[in-house]
């Protein structure tokens, strides 16, 4: 298959279907990772979890962190060749905020002014030093307003040329892309495949050039035509506990669970030990905010777990139902391993496997569960969005975790404009999540990506992004 001068399209296999190409619609990680190539915000994520100017050439932030001033990149154009104007930026931010409603991160904007064609001034209703992370919001062309959902026009390295629902999506190199330093492939076809096994067969037969989330068995049988890229999935993967379920209201019980689960074995099973073990809700690859001191708090120690259970008055264990979405086989396997670990310390763990939509509405939204295995990805680089998840009155506090100390640290962090102080506050919060054993945090799972040797490159990001502009032809 690997013809040395073959410059045909890169076929990327995606085991999830993309159902919408409107970048302002709130969607799943897979959609975001593909649209990353087509659209850009004023700023865009970097490989280390920060942001760098994209549609904007540079920006300044006022000392009180309420006024962000952007100068647009000189000569930057949309995929149809029209220049990007300050009005387009204003339009895009307002459109996105309008779709997401009052809970949108962009609702903190009190005013957007456009003093000239290439300057945008964003004023916030309250100081926010993390606001820049929200400005990865896609900039769209205002003139194309009526067709944004069908045929959106962006500024990214690739333009969207074809979208066949349920089948594939084609991306073509945009020759007018502002970053002339980049040299990359001409065409990408993102192909939607029904399931992971089918996708792997297509990889082996050569219909697919690139596939992510391979298992360690698969990489050993994939053959010589592929290079394997090892990275992590950028998830906080764990056994999340409903802190309102009676036995789990007790901190010692939750700690016991933390001692009972064999994290290394799960990491080994998942990806040959290539994952990064965590003990808090944190992303080790984004070093700017991660509290490394939490690591190593709980070791695998079934005896200690039994002791803690006995202290808490659960010497004879208790019933624990682990709900798991059945479409993620790795989550199901993890749940099975955890159930064995818990049985070993006397907890009667059972597994309830449900379909994804049931999980979303019953477990996630209604919090009608005892424990669940899942992985949380990040949709925004702003740490405030990650840690809101444990704020006692938050809509998405699915674990029902409640700590007044945590809440007050969170509030302080939101009022701080100094990033060092902020890091310290977020670090303390991560420590509380560990010490109070909010859940059993396990790992950022390892991930294997196979890439046909016709190609080289492919950078990985700590956010949902498949950067095809980092891929070149091998010959």
């Amino acid at each position: 298959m690997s013809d040395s001068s073959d410059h045909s399209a890169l076929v990327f296999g995606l085991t999830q279907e993309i159902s919408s190409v409107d970048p302002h619609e709130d969607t799943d990680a897979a959609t975001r990772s593909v649209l990353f190539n087509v659209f850009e915000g004023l700023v865009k994520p970097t490989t280390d979890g920060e942001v760098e100017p994209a549609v904007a050439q540079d920006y300044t932030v006022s000392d009180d962190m309420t006024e962000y001033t952007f100068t647009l990149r000189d000569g930057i154009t949309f995929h149809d060749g029209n220049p990007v104007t300050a009005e387009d930026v204003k339009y895009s931010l307002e459109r996105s905020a309008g779709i997401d409603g009052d809970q949108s991160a962009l609702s903190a904007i009190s005013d957007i002014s456009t003093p000239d064609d290439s300057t945008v001034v964003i004023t916030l209703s309250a100081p926010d030093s993390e606001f820049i992370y929200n400005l990865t919001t896609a900039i769209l062309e205002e003139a194309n307003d009526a067709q944004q959902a069908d045929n959106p026009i962006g500024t990214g390295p690739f333009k969207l040329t074809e979208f066949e629902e349920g089948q594939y999506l084609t991306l073509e190199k945009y020759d007018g892309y502002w970053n002339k330093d980049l040299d990359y492939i001409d065409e990408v076809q993102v192909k939607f495949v029904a399931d992971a096994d089918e996708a792997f067969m297509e990889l082996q037969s050569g219909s697919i050039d690139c596939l992510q989330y391979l298992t360690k068995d698969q990489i050993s049988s994939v053959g010589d035509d592929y290079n394997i890229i090892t990275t992590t999935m950028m998830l906080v993967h764990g056994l999340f506990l409903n802190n309102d379920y009676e036995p789990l209201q007790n901190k010692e019980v939750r700690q016991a669970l933390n001692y009972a689960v064999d994290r290394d074995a799960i990491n080994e099973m998942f990806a040959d030990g290539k994952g990064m073990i965590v003990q808090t809700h944190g992303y080790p690859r984004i070093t700017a905010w991660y509290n490394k001191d939490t690591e190593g708090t709980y070791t695998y120690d079934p005896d200690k777990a039994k002791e803690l259970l006995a202290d808490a008055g659960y010497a004879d264990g208790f019933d624990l139902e682990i709900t798991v979405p059945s479409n993620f086989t790795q989550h199901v396997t993890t749940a099975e391993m955890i159930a064995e670990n818990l049985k070993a310390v006397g907890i009667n763990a059972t597994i309830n496997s449900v379909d994804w939509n049931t999980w979303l509405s019953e477990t996630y939204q209604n919090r009608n569960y005892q424990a669940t295995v899942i992985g949380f990805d990040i949709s925004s680089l702003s740490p405030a969005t990650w840690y809101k998840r444990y704020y006692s009155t938050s809509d998405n506090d699915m674990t029902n975790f409640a700590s007044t100390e945590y809440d007050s640290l969170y509030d302080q962090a939101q009022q701080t404009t100094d990033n060092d102080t902020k890091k310290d506050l977020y670090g303390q919060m991560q420590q509380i999540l560990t010490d109070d054993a909010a859940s059993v945090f396990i790992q950022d799972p390892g991930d294997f990506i196979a890439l046909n040797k016709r190609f080289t490159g492919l950078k990985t990001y700590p956010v949902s992004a498949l950067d095809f502009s980092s891929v070149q032809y091998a010959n």
Partner: protein
Amino acid sequence: MKYFIKKIISLIITLLVISLLTFTAFSIIPGDAALSKLGVDASPTAVENLRKEYGLDKPVIVRYGDWLADALHGDFGQSFKYSNKSVSELMASRLPVTVLLAVMSLIIIVVVSLPLGMLSARFSGRWPDTVINIVSQVLMAIPSFFLGIIITYVFGIVLRVFQTGGFVSPDKDLQGCIRYLFFPAVAVAIPKIAMVVKYLRNSVLSEMKKDYVRTAYSKGNSDNQVLYGHVFRNALIPVITFVAMVVAEILAGSLVVEQVFSIPGMGRLLITSISARDYPVVQASVLYITTIVVVINFIVDVLYQLADPRIRYA
């Protein structure tokens, strides 16, 4: 004519009942189209807004009424999952693929199973019959999806005569599409061939015992003359019914085979829309399946009359 009207009325009643059942079932199972679309990070307000937009905030009975009123005007609404597509558009793009697959499977079934069935009957009790019997018994037991996986592996990965997942849509490259659908059609056809062969063989053998066969022989006809001139036509009647049900089954969407071979047909559309709780698409798909089954039953009745003029429906 009276029979025809009766059939139409029963089709309408069936459609109404089925659509109401699907609707109710969908409102009972957990899961929510808006949440499904927006995912974990969606704000409750955004989910609420989308539910309103979809009309999911209204009671089931009101929603069913609205849906029915639109459907009667031929408007099946917009898909939730594919937000910019109407249900009719989606179905129109998937239907040709499934029809093509069904036609190809049908041709393979008929071409292969009729001669084999006759051969088996002709040599009943002797070795060709025994061999055909054993082979079809085995093939009948293999489910299509498993066959699909084996075919993909052998022809796609080992022999490489078939491009796994290399589906091209029929309006782009009809020939390429037919070439791709050949192996899936074989996977659909094989177990059915085995069944049709057995069916035809038994049907021929039971016809052979009838009086008219003895008469035919006494008039000096040869074995072949009796078999093809007299028995075949009569033996075909039950086989037609069976083949027609097979066609209905494939047209209704070979869910599993479409899934295994990544064919974007009606079956895959139904699976995706169920998992996305995309009920406008599910409703329309279920109606389509119901219609196919009822209409094919009707066609079978007509074919019966053609094959045997004694059968008349009042």
